[in-house]
């Protein structure tokens, strides 16, 4: 059995046209120009196949050779790892590669839709309260510096709302110590926020926008829902794991091409955000129903929050939104 190869001696950059002869059992003879070498088959190794690269055989003296086709001499060569043979088949056959692509998308979807959120839930429940308090306080400091101003609501109005809110919370049988804060925020507008460790902030703007305190109780229940289910910590955990996953796939963070990973990352993170909002809505609806409070005021408040509210609005913009479409939220509230 004879095959023609290109041989490199490993000592110089010279290119040899050579031939391999496998007639002797257990040995291979290499002949090039006036060189003739004999190698034990056991001592040579074959490079694991990658894509459509030409096969390479490495000899124990550091020389190697390249040939166009391995199949003729395969029976004479030491076995290559079966695992990598299989991997190579998956890479190079279109139908296998397509199967792998489908599988990869499936595994990836499973990770993002199920494994990562579940993992985040488990971890969030293990976070010690002391750490949560530090996080909450740090976040509040940052927000106070960047978007909040002192509340302009009269003090007695603040006290009255706080008392009524805390009374509602008492009826929820929570183990968390809640803290109700009021801030003015022209930058943020009408909004309410839940921070880790039970800090709930109402902006003056939302208090003024609400037509009744009942609507604000609905908002409160929504925010309590966020805190009880540890959404902020789960959100941070899920976002970072997903970002890490996508960076792993696209290769490296530094290259310009990974800007392409930014959009899917953002979309997944927004999806998480919408899910948390839905969970918090469900919590609020359950609370309002259990306490025979009408969902109507909350519904009206949601409508006036979404100035662009449109009964028909269920287009693609949904995928780029941090909250579920107002229409969906309102439908849910009406159903009860």
């Amino acid at each position, binding site marked *: 059995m004879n095959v023609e190869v*290109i041989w*490199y*001696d*490993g*000592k*110089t*950059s*010279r*290119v040899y046209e050579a031939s391999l002869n496998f007639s002797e059992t257990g040995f291979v003879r290499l002949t090039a120009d006036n060189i003739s070498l004999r190698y034990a088959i056991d001592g040579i190794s074959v*490079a694991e196949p*990658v*894509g*459509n*690269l*030409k096969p*390479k055989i490495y000899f124990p003296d*550091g*020389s*190697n050779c*390249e040939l166009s086709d391995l199949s003729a001499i395969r029976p004479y060569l030491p076995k290559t790892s079966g695992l990598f043979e299989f*991997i190579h088949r*998956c*890479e*190079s*056959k*279109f139908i*296998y*590669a397509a199967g*792998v*692509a489908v*599988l*990869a998308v499936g*595994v*990836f979807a499973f*990770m993002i839709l199920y494994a990562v959120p579940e993992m985040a839930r488990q971890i969030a429940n293990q976070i010690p309260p002391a750490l949560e308090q530090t996080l909450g306080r740090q976040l509040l400091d940052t927000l106070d510096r960047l978007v909040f101003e002192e509340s302009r609501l009269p003090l007695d109005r603040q006290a009255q709302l706080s008392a009524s809110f805390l009374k509602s919370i008492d009826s929820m049988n929570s183990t968390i110590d809640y803290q109700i804060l009021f801030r003015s925020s022209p930058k943020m507008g009408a909004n309410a926020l839940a921070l880790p460790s039970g800090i709930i902030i109402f902006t003056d703007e939302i208090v003024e926008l609400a037509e009744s305190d009942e609507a604000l109780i609905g908002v409160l229940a929504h925010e309590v829902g966020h805190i009880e289910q540890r959404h902020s910590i789960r959100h941070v955990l899920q976002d970072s794991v997903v970002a890490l*996953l*996508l960076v*792993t*796939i*696209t*290769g*490296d963070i*530094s*290259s*310009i*091409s990974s*800007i*392409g*990973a930014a*959009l*899917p990352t953002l979309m997944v993170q927004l999806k998480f955000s919408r899910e948390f909002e839905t969970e918090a809505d469900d919590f609020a609806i359950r609370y309002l129903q259990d306490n025979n409070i009408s969902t109507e005021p909350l519904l009206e408040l949601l409508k006036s929050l979404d100035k662009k509210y449109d009964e028909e609005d269920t287009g693609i913009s949904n995928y780029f939104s941090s909250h579920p479409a107002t229409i969906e939220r309102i439908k849910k509230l009406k159903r009860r």
Partner: protein
Amino acid sequence: MIEDNNHQNFSFNGTAGAFFGIWIVNILLTILTLGIYTPWAKVRTNRYFYGHTNVAGSNFDYLASPITILKGYLIAVAIFIVYTVVSALAPGSEIIFFILLMIALPFIIVRAMAFRLRNTAYRNLRFRFDRQYGQAAWVYLGIGILIPLTLGLILPYFAYRTNKFLITNAGYGQSRFSLQCGAGDFYKIYLIALGILIGAGIIVAVVMMPVMMEMKTVMEQAAQSGVEPDPATMGAAMAGLPVLIYFLVLLLYFGVFIYIRTAVANLVWNNITLDGGHRFESSLKLGRMAWIIFSNMVVILLSLGLMIPWARVRMVRYRMNTLVLIPGGDLDTFIREKAEEESALGEEMGDVFDMDIGGIG
């Protein structure tokens, strides 16, 4: 002329389809093994790209062992975990880590370069990189620290010194690379970049000024007539203008960034020599580079990442199609570095922080 007949074009004959298979299998196995497969993925990818890069009838070879890389990754992960835990327990300790990382930087750069080049072979002869830690510390830290102190005036000099450092310490077999150009050539490139920035800034200002004036008149007229201008139109104009300016500036920086990269790559490649009078010729075109990078980005975005293999192959192919080797003599006579085997020892942590070191990329 003998030299003219003797030009050896680099070429890349890999295909997007074949690389897609490798890439997608790598991703699946990396996810399934929770990242442990990463070194194998890296080796297979590099073997594909090196193996399909040809010049003078032969291809390159990537020889790193995945196990060695895995050890490096594990060390890096361990360091990262220590960092996370310590900085969570003792807030403020990040700065100490940052300083330690800065001190370790020259060491890491030299190690990564040595690992990469030692595992790159052409015609079964390995490249190499001399481990000049002191030199690395001087160039990266000593000169690097002067950049903010000189308000960036020294930046082109820094680019020159880092490129010179990376090239003069590299070798192929027993032959060494050297860099013929000087700091002045780098200053020229950065000055042109600065000129583009200033020129474009003036143009933007000139174009924007009438728009601003127009808006001012509309508002004044509205105020006089007592009629509120249509809030929707005004709102759109007010919001649209900063967004437009923002995008223009972003585009400008993007363009200048690509200009510098392209010009430096051409400058450096055209001035590298390898012992024996071998030279290179790089003829990257700015417009073509910008087009490839920009359209790659758009295609990757629209395909949700699935076209990444196509984009990478396309970039490398253009890179190689514009690179020429001008041999100064026989390409068969390079000789293996004698100390090669010894220097291969004790490099377990190989590419702990393997990273792409810019400049000659």
